[in-house]
């Protein structure tokens, strides 16, 4: 009500001036849109990297996760005593608990020359009769792993694996070298590459110990705990923690906490945040420079009018409001097309690269805030010239 009054009670000079010089308005809008696009892509890619690192977490069929206290993330989880898992099973509210064995292993992948090339895969060992993964495709193929020396192969492994894949789909069982032994690929599934490893191989626990001679059943990497219906994960996790008492070799986290824990590690330990924050700042600078250029030119063109208005009794503040109004208009006018193009590019990235990139409300609000800040900053810089308009000059 009061805001409507304010708007109606003054002439929207900033708007009128912008509309009057359409070319200028178009350039400024395009500049803001470009900056907004740049920022959306930077933040989107950054989040995509964090998300791709926890894609495997989201695949796991567990409400609560046990890992070593020294654990970094899923790819380097360390080990903890299997007896913790047995302790957890006894806690009220726990439906079942099973061990997962994880280790990175070199394998020989196909290459241009027929000799092959070494690369690192993440090998996950699991009891074939335990539903460790949510994906029904994986669950259906786990029984195949009962035969030792077999593995499920990750279609999304980085690199060109089309011949491998086609062979498996034809029902053949291609073989390659894994950790100095021969592994037979009996099926494909989809998890995706993350940092550190190029892809994932799922094997049975028996196969795991054959390929990883230094690993023993009593030292699993990740404990998957499911809670009974009508129990909440956080409460049960606290109960398990209480059961462990003074044993501090194992962390108990809900799946959400584990995901945040892994992302947080990545945020702190990698240069990703820095690189993309830098990109975002560059985007802001581009926006500020373009908008400042346009607003300054507009102020310069209207100095005589501003001086006249001052002579008529307008205060400095009222005229600074004109520039501020213009910067707000430009931030909104540029944000909308910038957002639309970004949504389009996100869709392209999703379908062409099959990477998990999505718009979030938080990011939308954040980038809109940045766009307004950007334009307000340019406005504040351009305003300095308004003060120079001298009412005594108009005669």
């Amino acid at each position, binding site marked *: 009500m009061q805001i409507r009054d304010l708007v109606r009670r003054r002439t929207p000079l900033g708007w009128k001036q912008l509309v009057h010089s359409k070319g200028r308005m178009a350039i400024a809008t395009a500049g803001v849109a470009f900056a907004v696009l740049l920022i959306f892509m930077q933040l989107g890619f950054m989040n995509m990297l964090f998300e791709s690192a926890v894609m495997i977490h989201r695949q796991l069929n567990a409400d609560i996760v046990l890992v070593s206290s020294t654990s970094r993330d899923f790819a380097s989880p360390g080990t903890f005593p299997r007896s913790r898992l047995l302790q957890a099973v006894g806690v009220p509210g726990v439906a079942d608990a099973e061990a997962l064995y994880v280790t990175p292993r070199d394998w020989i992948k196909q290459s241009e020359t027929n000799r092959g090339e070494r690369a690192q895969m993440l090998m996950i060992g699991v009891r074939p009769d335990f539903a460790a993964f949510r994906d029904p495709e994986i669950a259906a193929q786990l029984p195949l792993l009962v035969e030792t020396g077999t593995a499920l192969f990750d279609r999304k492994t980085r690199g060109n694996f089309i011949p491998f894949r086609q062979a498996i789909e034809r029902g053949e069982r291609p073989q390659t070298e894994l950790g100095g032994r021969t592994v037979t690929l009996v099926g494909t599934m989809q998890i995706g590459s993350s940092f550190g490893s190029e892809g994932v191989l799922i094997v049975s626990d028996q196969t795991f110990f054959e390929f990883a001679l230094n690993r023993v059943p009593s030292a699993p990497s990740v404990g998957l705990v499911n809670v009974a219906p009508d129990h909440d994960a956080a409460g049960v996790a606290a109960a398990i923690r209480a059961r462990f008492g003074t044993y501090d070799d194992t962390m108990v986290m809900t799946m959400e906490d584990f995901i945040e824990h892994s992302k947080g590690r990545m945020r702190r330990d990698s240069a990703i945040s820095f690189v993309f924050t830098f990109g975002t700042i560059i985007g802001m600078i581009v926006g500020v420079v373009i908008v400042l250029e346009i607003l300054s030119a507009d102020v310069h063109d209207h100095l005589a009018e501003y001086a006249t208005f001052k002579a008529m009794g307008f205060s400095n503040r009222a005229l600074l409001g004109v520039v501020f109004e213009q910067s707000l208009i430009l931030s909104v006018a540029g944000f909308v097309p910038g957002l639309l193009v970004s949504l389009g590019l996100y869709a392209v990235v999703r379908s062409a690269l099959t990477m998990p990139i999505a718009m979030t409300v938080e990011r939308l609000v954040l980038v809109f805030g940045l766009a307004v800040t950007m334009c307000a900053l340019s406005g504040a810089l351009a305003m300095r010239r308004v003060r120079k308009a001298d009412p005594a000059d*108009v005669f």
Partner: protein
Amino acid sequence: MELSRLSHWYGAGETRRQVLFELDLVIPRGEVVFLMGPSGCGKTTILTLVGGLRSVQQGSVRVAGRELAGANEARLIANRRQCGFIFQAHNLHRSLTARENVRMGLEAQGRGLPPDADERSERMLAVVGLADHANKFQHQLSGGQRQRVAIARALVAEPPLILADEPTAALDRQTGHDVVALLRRVARERGMTVLMVTHDNRVLDFADRLLEMEDGRIVAARPGAAAAAPVNP
């Protein structure tokens, strides 16, 4: 309006130069006074001091009982709102229509746009004979029409004092004559005081009093032709 012992200097140090010398002048309410004199004698300087566009350096300027010597920015702005300015160039805003330009005269009062701003602006445009041109931009108006819009803008808030600096300089003979006649008629009807600088001999008939300046001093004052004739010429 009252000036007493008003002096003014431009520049600083070596180049400091006095342009007004201890001026005394009283203009009673409702009088129409024309100020004449050779170029550079200080006419515009007087207008800017009276209007509160420049700070008073020495002497005193009182407008409607308000002292401008030593006034702060807020007092100067308050004074500007009491004055209607008409410039040599029309100084209209090119992104605004005639009505919106006139309306700025109301908005300049610092209380936003009054609810009846558009009606008042249109009435004022009708007074200056531009009722049919309210929605036109300046590039669609002739020189005389633009100057009449500028007059409407200066008068719309009904300021007690009109300050005009050679408003006819850019106009042809007949248009200049009409514009000043209009200005005088409206000012008279509303009891406004007018201080107008002019070089234009053809409009002197409209003054109550004519002041001659030379080198920063008022050297002669004589009654204008209009002083004798109380009604519109």
